[in-house]
Structure formats: structure tokens, C-alpha cells
């Protein structure tokens, strides 16, 4: 692979990864030489450092690399994070929260089947606010199940989700059963 392309591909990989990536893993993914990758990482790091209009930096430790923001922008990032937490929960977010609370534990596909729209952003927001949590799905190694957090239930004065008003009837509503079965059939068909 030409140098130019390694550099761009390297940046793409570091961008999507949330954790430090080892030089070895980067080299393997790019089907490139590990020393080559190390040289490109040095070049990338210098490019970021020398460009005052660039807001990113490369953090390297123990032959692992990770992208991060430049420290001088920390105050702006804090303000963005804070404002996204303080924002009022939208109607869709409250609905997803209610679904997770009443139908816990539930998968993302099930939530989306019930609401008829994609929910990935909403789930992410609820996770960040510690209102819901996700765990590995015992029934599907690659998937997750979502549950309300204990702290959230506690803030409503409840010990568990079963104490939600009309939990027994609402969580087993026939419309839910219908739409969830329907989607299973569609997925299998």
C-alpha cells in the first residue's frame, strides 16, 4: 500500500477506536510493516502538533496509540458534555426510557421494533446519564441487553422495575407481544 494511503487509513482507524491500539494490531489491520506504522504515527503526531488549527493529538504509550483532543480545548469539551447532560430529555428519549424500565431486560432490536424507529443515539444518551445500563446478552454473544440502573429506579422511589405503576398488566400488553412476534417472523422470513 502506498505511504499516502497508509497515513490516511491509520488516521481513520485511530478515529473510530475508543481504546489505544497497539502498533502490531494497526500493522496487521493495514497489512503493513510495523516499523512503517511506527514511522507514520510519528509523522502524524508531528503534523497534529505543528498545525495550530488542528484540535487533535496522538497519545502514544507502550507502543500503543490513541487519538485524543488537544488539552487546551478541555474547557469547551467540558461545556459541551455538561450541556448535553443538562439538556431536557426529549419525548423519544423518555419513551425509550419507559420501554427499558417496563420491559427490562430488552434488546435494542426489540426497542426499535416497538417504536418503529432507530434508537441508537437515544440509547447512548441514556447510558451517558446513567439512567440505563447495558450488559452482554446471554442469548447472543455479539449483542447487548438494556436495563434501568438501580440509581434511576431509586430516584423514582422504587426498589425494582416490578414496582412501576401497573407493571404486571402494562409489561405484558398484547400489542407488545404482537409487534415483537411480528418482527421475529419478518427477520426469519
Amino acid at each position, binding site marked *: 500500500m502506498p505511504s499516502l494511503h497508509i497515513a490516511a487509513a491509520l488516521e481513520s482507524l485511530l478515529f*473510530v477506536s475508543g481504546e489505544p491500539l497497539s502498533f502490531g494490531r494497526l500493522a496487521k489491520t493495514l497489512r503493513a510493516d510495523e516499523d512503517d506504522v511506527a514511522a507514520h504515527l510519528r509523522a502524524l503526531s508531528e503534523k497534529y502538533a505543528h498545525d495550530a488549527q488542528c484540535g487533535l493529538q496522538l497519545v502514544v504509550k507502550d507502543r500503543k496509540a490513541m487519538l485524543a483532543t488537544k488539552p487546551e480545548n478541555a474547557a469547551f469539551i467540558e461545556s459541551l458534555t455538561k450541556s448535553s447532560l443538562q439538556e431536557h430529555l426529549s419525548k423519544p428519549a423518555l419513551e425509550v426510557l419507559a420501554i427499558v424500565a417496563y420491559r427490562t431486560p430488552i434488546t435494542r432490536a426489540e426497542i426499535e421494533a416497538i417504536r*418503529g424507529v432507530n434508537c441508537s443515539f437515544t440509547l447512548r*444518551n441514556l447510558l451517558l446519564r446513567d439512567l440505563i445500563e447495558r450488559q452482554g446478552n446471554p442469548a447472543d454473544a455479539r449483542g447487548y441487553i438494556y436495563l434501568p440502573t438501580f440509581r434511576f429506579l431509586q430516584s423514582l422511589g422504587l426498589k425494582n422495575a416490578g414496582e412501576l405503576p401497573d407493571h404486571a398488566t402494562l409489561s405484558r400488553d398484547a400489542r407488545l407481544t404482537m409487534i415483537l412476534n411480528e418482527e421475529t417472523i419478518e427477520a426469519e422470513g
Partner: protein
Amino acid sequence: MAYHIRLEQFEGPLDLLLSLIEKEELDITQVSLAKVADQYLEYLRNETSISLEHLASFLTIAARLILIKSRALLPILEWSDEEEESMDDLELRLREYKRFREAAGTLGALFAQKRVSHNRESFLGTQVVFYPPSGLTAADLRKHFTDVLGEIPVFDVLPEQAMRAIVTLEEKILSLQQMLAERIEISFSDLTRTAIDRVEVIISFLAVLEMVKQRIIFVEQGKFFSDISIKRLVP
């Protein structure tokens, strides 16, 4: 050999009509619409599995095609502005639909290239902070949940019901033949007495037209809007 295309392959009447025109390598004009009108009706007649819901939209287009064909065959007849408009309209709609059918093909090819631009999961690595919505109560949560239940679409159970209620042109022709086997003459109102909706009445009418064309029956109508009497042609 009969050339059969299953209607399920077609997403609606415009898709079918456009495919017929393209098969004949014609441009979209009134003349080509008149040319493929019979083929369109033929497919409709042979198809046994259109749901009632779909059939209505297929028949609306069929009615316009019959109009266009009649105009081509009987140029001396005068047409109302409304009729003229509906004939031109079909041509224009078909052109518009064609552009999007082509655009859909282009998009499909773009998807197949898998040139996906990936984003980063939001606030990766940010510490989770407990931030409950202020003032939210368990009763509010109950309300949001019942709102969700109320929004669950009921159409998801409809297709099955629609499938059960299929009445095809073919079936109508058969039942008309049976009725005529028992009696020499029946009226159009006899034929449609048990019709469950307007669509079935339209199918009955198309069935009658088809059988006239095939010289199985002949029809008489005393005056405009009076009942039509249907008689079996003795072979």
C-alpha cells in the same frame, strides 16, 4: 407460448406499466400506453394473488389505460377536459416514476460499493454521570409507556386479512360463466349483488368487458345508467 410475468415482481401498477413499455422498447407516450394496455389487462387477469388493497391501485390505472386505448381507437369521440387530463396525467406520472426507478438503481449500485464513512461513538471514554431528568415520577414513566403502546401500528396485522379477501378477475369471469351456464341471461346488478366493495364491482365490470372481447357474452344497455343485461353467446 404464453408469456407470464408474476405480478409480485412488480411494485405496483406504475412499475408494471413501465416494465411493459420498456420490454417493447417504447418511449413513454400516449401511443405506447395504448399499445401496452391489453398486455397490462392481461397480466391483471392472469394474476391470482394481488391483495385487495393493491388491486384498487392496479384497477385505477387500468381504467385510465382503457380510456387511452379507446381514444386511440375512436379518435372521433369527444372527451371531457377531466378525461383528457387524466390521460395526460398517467403519462407524466410514469415519466416521473421512471426517473426515481432509475435513481433507485444508481443508489443500489452505490450501496454495493460499500464506501461507508464511519463515525465515532459519541462521547467515547467520557465518564458516565448520573443525571436524572428533574421532576420525573414513576407515574410520568407510566404515561410515556402507555403513549408508546398507543403508537404501535395496527397495520402490521392487516396484510394477512387482505390476503384472505382476494377476488381476482379470473374468479369473476369463472363465476359469471357459471351463472350464465344456469341461466341464459343475467343482469349486471345480479352479478354484483354480493360484492363487498367498489373494487369488486369494478372487477366484475372488467370481467364483463373481457368476456365481450373474447366473444363469450354480449351485453345490452337500454339507456345510460340503466342496468346492463348480459347474455351468453350460443357457441
